[in-house]
């Protein structure tokens, strides 16, 4: 068992039995569900909108070669410096290079899952630079030296009391459980950081090929400050973020807000087309865009699961996933948690090391049903299972299925096994629920039914004679 599996098994066992955690997450996501349904109802036809979004993303991903070239050409035409990073390490190097070049000391950053993916903050801090997260949730988890708990709600697992304690400890503020006051404490600390920062790093929600623009959508205005105040702006994004046309945002912005947070539209929606142009009053002097692959092209090469690149990182699949809701975000040990994380992590970080996430699913399909861009999530989990078993089968499991197959294909043998089950059934009572019980994984928390004296097939046969 590798470390990732052990970690997942242990933590999932612990968190899923934690009733306080269960209640906290149920309450938070219960509120989300109400808002989401309310906003979904405002769409003329939500299902048609999903279909349109899926088709647009299909077009974007299947013609990625052309759209990326268009995007870069148009970004460069307005003086943006575009970098291509084939791996996460390369992306970190490129960003470190810019930071060193500018002799920067302090960096302000808005939310970017791609930066989490490549551990950019650690790389920058290791090189001696200060990086401060400006999104409130991200700021909180950064102060706690934790990874985000959720793609969209990084600090969803914390109560106001816990945040107040954290601020008191780290920022010396007076305890309060008033959300506005807590926000003001963070705001006061962050405003200073915006002013002193030499460089602002952002992620991106969409990249528009037609106009060469980066779309960033956020609720706190922190990304706008991150982009506007420092002299240098860097945007890090995965190559799959491309949308063909500007008008596509008319669908994708409300869709992302609705699916992700139960909002009609996110509060701030900005488009960045390049550095400050002659005659313009504001904007950064220099604008860098880092386009990152980091094994996304391997997913692109997989015709069966290519649609996983449609993902707009709304987090809707996490919110409805009964596994996520019971084990929580940190248990996955991945940047991308929940169903989408279980699908793509094996592609991004290795199938054999991360296949356990594809097995840690009841295949209920709630994720696929909710996904606004119609990624066939739960069927991709099945495909990951198939691919991993094909690549490196477990001898014991393979043998078990082979033997079961022989039994199932020979009625007399199957009938004998059934009789044996009934013979040994009374003995099972002696060990039930103990470590000697072969069905312990079931019986430690649940009772097993006992097989009645006559099976259906036996009844059917009796009846015919």
């Amino acid at each position: 068992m590798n470390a990732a599996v052990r970690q997942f098994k242990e933590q999932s066992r612990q968190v899923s039995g934690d009733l306080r955690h269960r209640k906290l997450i149920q309450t938070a996501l219960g509120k989300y569900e109400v808002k989401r349904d309310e906003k979904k109802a405002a769409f003329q036809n939500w299902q048609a909108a999903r279909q349109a979004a899926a088709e647009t993303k299909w077009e974007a991903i299947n013609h990625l070669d052309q759209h990326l070239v268009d995007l870069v050409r148009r970004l460069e035409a307005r003086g943006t410096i575009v970098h291509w990073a084939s791996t996460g390490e390369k992306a970190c190097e490129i960003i470190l290079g810019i930071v060193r070049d500018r002799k920067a000391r302090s960096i302000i950053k808005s939310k970017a899952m791609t930066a989490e993916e490549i551990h950019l903050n650690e790389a920058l801090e290791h090189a001696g630079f200060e990086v401060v997260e400006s999104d409130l949730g991200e700021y909180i988890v950064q102060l706690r030296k934790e990874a985000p708990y959720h793609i969209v709600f990084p600090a969803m697992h914390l109560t106001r009391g816990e945040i107040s304690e954290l601020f008191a400890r780290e920022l010396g503020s007076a305890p309060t459980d008033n959300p506005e006051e807590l926000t003001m404490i963070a705001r006061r600390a962050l405003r200073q950081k915006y002013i002193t920062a030499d460089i602002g790093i952002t992620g991106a929600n969409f990249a528009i090929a037609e106009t060469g623009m980066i779309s960033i959508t956020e609720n706190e205005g922190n990304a706008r400050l991150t982009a506007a105040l420092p002299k240098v702006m860097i945007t890090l994004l995965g190559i799959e973020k491309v949308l063909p046309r500007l008008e596509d945002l008319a669908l994708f912005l409300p869709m992302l807000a609705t699916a992700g947070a139960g909002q009609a539209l996110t509060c701030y929606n900005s488009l960045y087309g390049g550095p400050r142009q002659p005659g313009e009053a504001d904007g950064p002097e220099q604008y860098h865009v880092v386009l990152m692959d980091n094994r996304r092209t391997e997913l692109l090469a997989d015709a069966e699961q290519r649609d996983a690149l449609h993902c707009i990182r709304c987090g809707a699949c996490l919110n409805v996933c009964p596994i996520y809701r019971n084990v929580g975000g940190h248990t996955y040990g991945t940047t991308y948690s929940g169903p989408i994380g279980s699908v793509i992590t094996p592609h991004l970080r290795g199938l054999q090391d991360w296949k356990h996430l594809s097995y840690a699913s009841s295949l209920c399909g709630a994720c696929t049903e909710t996904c606004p861009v119609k990624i066939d999530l739960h069927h991709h989990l099945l495909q990951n299972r198939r691919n991993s078993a094909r690549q490196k089968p477990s001898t014991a499991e393979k043998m078990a299925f082979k033997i079961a197959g022989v039994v199932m294909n020979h009625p007399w043998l199957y009938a004998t096994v059934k009789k044996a089950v009934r013979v040994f059934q009374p003995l099972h009572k002696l060990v039930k629920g103990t470590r000697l019980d072969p069905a312990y994984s079931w019986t430690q928390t649940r009772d097993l039914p006992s097989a009645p004296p006559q099976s259906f097939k036996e009844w059917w046969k009796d009846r015919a004679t």
Partner: protein
Amino acid sequence: MTITLFIPCFVDLMYPKVGISMVHILERLGHKVRCPEEIVCCGQPAFNAGYWDESRAVAGKVLDRLKDAEAVVIASGSCGAMLRVFYPDLFSGTVHSREAKMLAGKCHEFSDFLVNRLGVTDVGARFPARVTFHDGCHGLRELGNKKPARALLAKVRDLEFVEMKDAETCCGFGGTFAAKFPMISTAMGEVKCASAFATGAQYIVSNDSSCLMQVQGLLDRQKSSVKTIHLAEILAQS
């Protein structure tokens, strides 16, 4: 009509009453029922675990024995989804590809068959109790069966139906998942039971015995007085 009834292995062994109820109901409606002895398992456990060759060894027999059937009724939404949705995937690119697609079109989960194929909602049943319904995920999302079971329950005399909150949320069974990740599975089951308790129902009904095994297993451990029952068992009562 001659109906071929597919009683999956665990229903055969653990829940024979479910199959027996289906036979009685279909015969009462005037149909001829056959249950080929050689059909035991649909091959889903191996399929879901990723062992598609081993799954095909079992599924291939099923395909062969059912290909000439007029209509196939499956006593489980989950196994129904296997035949209807996943066989075409499983046999895609093999010589049986066409057969698998042909068979898929003839396969129905029991409640879907009654309502959508036979056009029957009232089977003359009476069940004096307060009940709630749990949607099995495969039946609900792979087969798209939301309405048939409710339409059938609505016509049962003296039955009081209460919809639970999150009826569509998974019970946590998920086949081998329940054994591979028992504590996650249990937590999911507990959430499901809590939703059902809130309705004050005496019975949790479903059209999948596997979900009911999970829920009943938890109820028994908690010494709860709430019981689970398969939809077919209710419909067979008069």
